[in-house]
């Protein structure tokens, strides 16, 4: 017994986390996933229907169009994040890593939106950007640029972009802190050789840091993908359960929420006979979409290892 663990010391390191995680995270997920095989309203008895929920989801025209719409918005968030946000986070992290003047201020300011709850963020943005009472429009009028005033928060064509900007603004600090930590992990001798070569400030970023934190960047891309698929608050608060006018801010998690819990509102309303069954089915489809991508990424990134 002892020699079994002696040969496999990793088991002892992994075991505590593994046990707690399996009981409190994996088991509930597995138990919930089974619900997708049932027809269930969340209160009454369940009826086993096999894969009917999945068949219905992909055959019902309305459901499919909602699914595609939500999926395209989620993917849009992800792609925009990878193209714009991650590079900005890396550059900001590099500046902070280089201890530019004001770095503490940068860190606090850029990270601070994380501390505020989403409804309050949105309310403050309303106070600032609303068409009638917003500070920004007031300011524009006072400097004689009244024709520029706009309902900034709700320009319909920009629906999803506004959601994305708010998400990025709120989440900017998270990735940045990761990258600062990652850069701090770059071995000193790598840097020393670069200094000896006389590489400039930006050249060091490109030739030393980027290759060294490549894996962190790829991991952040995957995490962004997962968050893009599971983001919920901002769309919900800006567009309600239905996902905005003509569902222009709908995202995957909101689609799931609408099916599973959408029947609860201040006016009451009906509980749908298959809300939990269909809701769980959508959650499972969402899960598979994330899982497969994660699997592919891990297989590609770590191919070299073995």
């Amino acid at each position, binding site marked *: 017994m002892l020699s079994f663990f002696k040969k496999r010391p990793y088991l002892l390191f992994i075991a505590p986390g593994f046990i707690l995680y399996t009981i409190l995270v994996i088991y509930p997920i597995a138990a919930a996933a089974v619900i997708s095989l049932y027809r269930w309203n969340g209160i009454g*008895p369940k009826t086993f229907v096999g894969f009917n929920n999945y068949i219905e989801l992909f055959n019902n025209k309305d459901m499919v169009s909602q699914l595609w719409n939500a999926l395209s918005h989620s993917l849009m968030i992800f792609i925009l994040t990878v193209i714009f946000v991650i590079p900005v986070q890396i550059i900001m992290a590099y500046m902070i890593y280089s201890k530019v003047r004001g770095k503490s201020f940068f860190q606090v300011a850029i990270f601070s939106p994380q501390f505020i709850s989403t409804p309050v963020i949105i309310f403050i943005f*309303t106070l600032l950007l609303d068409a009638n009472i917003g500070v920004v429009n007031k300011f524009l009028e006072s400097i004689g640029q009244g024709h520029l005033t706009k309902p900034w928060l709700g320009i*319909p064509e920009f629906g999803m972009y506004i959601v994305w900007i708010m998400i990025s603004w709120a989440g900017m600090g998270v990735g940045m802190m990761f990258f600062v930590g990652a850069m701090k992990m770059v071995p000193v001798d790598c840097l020393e050789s670069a200094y000896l070569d006389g590489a400039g400030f930006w050249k060091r970023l490109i030739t030393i840091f980027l290759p060294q934190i490549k894996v962190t960047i790829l991991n952040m891309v995957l995490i962004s993908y997962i968050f893009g698929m599971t983001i919920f608050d901002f769309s919900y608060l800006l567009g309600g359960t239905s996902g905005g*006018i003509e569902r222009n801010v709908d995202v995957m998690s909101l689609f799931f929420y609408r099916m599973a819990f959408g029947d*609860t*509102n201040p006016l*009451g309303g009906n509980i749908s006979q298959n809300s939990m069954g269909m809701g769980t089915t959508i959650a499972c489809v969402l899960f598979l979409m994330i899982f497969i991508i994660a699997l592919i990424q891990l297989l590609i990134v770590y191919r070299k290892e073995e």
Partner: protein
Amino acid sequence: MKKFYRALSMVLLVVVLSVSFLTACGSEQSANSTEASGSTAEKSSQPVTLKIWGDTDNQAILEASFNEINEAFTKKYPNIKLDYQYSGSFDSINVALQSDSLPDLFWVQGNKSTKMAEMTKQGFLLPLDDYKLDSSRFPEQSIEYATVDGKIYCSFPSFFDYAIMYYNKDIFQKYGLDKPKNWGEFENILKTLKDKGETAISFGGKGDFDRYWLMQVLAPTLANDVLQNIKEHKADTDYKNLIDTFNIYRSFAEKGYLGKDFAATDGAGAQLAFTNGKAAMLVDGTWNNQVFASVNFNVGRFALPSKDGVLYSQSGPSNYNTYAVSAKTKYPDEAAKYIEFLNDKESQQIFENNLGAIPLVKDLTPKDESVKEMAEYDQVGNNIYHVLSGVADETARPQDMLLADILPKLMTSKMTGEEAAQKIKDEIAKSSAK
């Protein structure tokens, strides 16, 4: 290598210990409480503790009232202690239902949603008929609210809410306007305000419900007969008035009564525009009355008049004081006492004094003048959302269609009233609940 194992076992020990320590803490507490409740079951003279879940979402609004009500209750029944917590969110009640851990009493939405009916069907709720609740003070709709299949399952609603027009008296006075007495006058007001360059109605077009309130006000005023027919499942309903209503809703947007950029304004923005004196009127719930009472101009209220001058409110009993008893409660008699107390004038007057809600029962003293003003309606009209969800079923959901599809399209002139009414008609035809 020995050191390694010693160290590792230390770590595991710490984890296990801290977990079991925490576990012990938790179980000690609940062990105490079960002990306490166990012993009380035997000796009924000992105090009993009722666990009650209030409405989490409305805690800030209801807290003052329930503090007072619960105090009055324990004064009246010194042997019944109340453990009243605001843990009744939609989520936590769902979890409690599925895990068989409901508290003794919790708030319900009565017939406003099908949830309570579903709970009774599954035997989660205690029928209250044996306790001979006094219903003589309550109107028909209160009793309907609490009844499922002929049995009463919750305390009777004693207040109601509806969407009302709030108006800025100062702006009205400036142009010599007054509360409208009929629909024609209302249209004139809108037109005058528009011509003078004012925003007639502050309107948030972004949220599902923000854009809905105007429809809730318009529908019974202009098409109550159609709603009544739909409610009664009449097959050959003439939708003409509803078509007109939809077209009027659309025309409000087109004529600019709703102000600039209404489609991009959210609910809070619309409310703030009104409270800042930037708009003459606002459609909002009577539940927000106390908010508008605190702004620094004169706010008036009116129910919207129909063409022949009938002022319509919309039906909508308030679920603020409607509570149901769990079927598994150990103390059904004591729980029924609490229900009785909620049905009692004493608790309702406490509510009124704190909230200033519109009473459904006649014998309460209104909190102030504004409550009287809100109660100045001639007829309780149908609530379009409730009417449509009353004829919905699994596949056909006209109420969702109205909120998420029809109203945004009407508002942005992408649909006509005829098309909208046809859509509702088709959807209802699909439903098996008709």
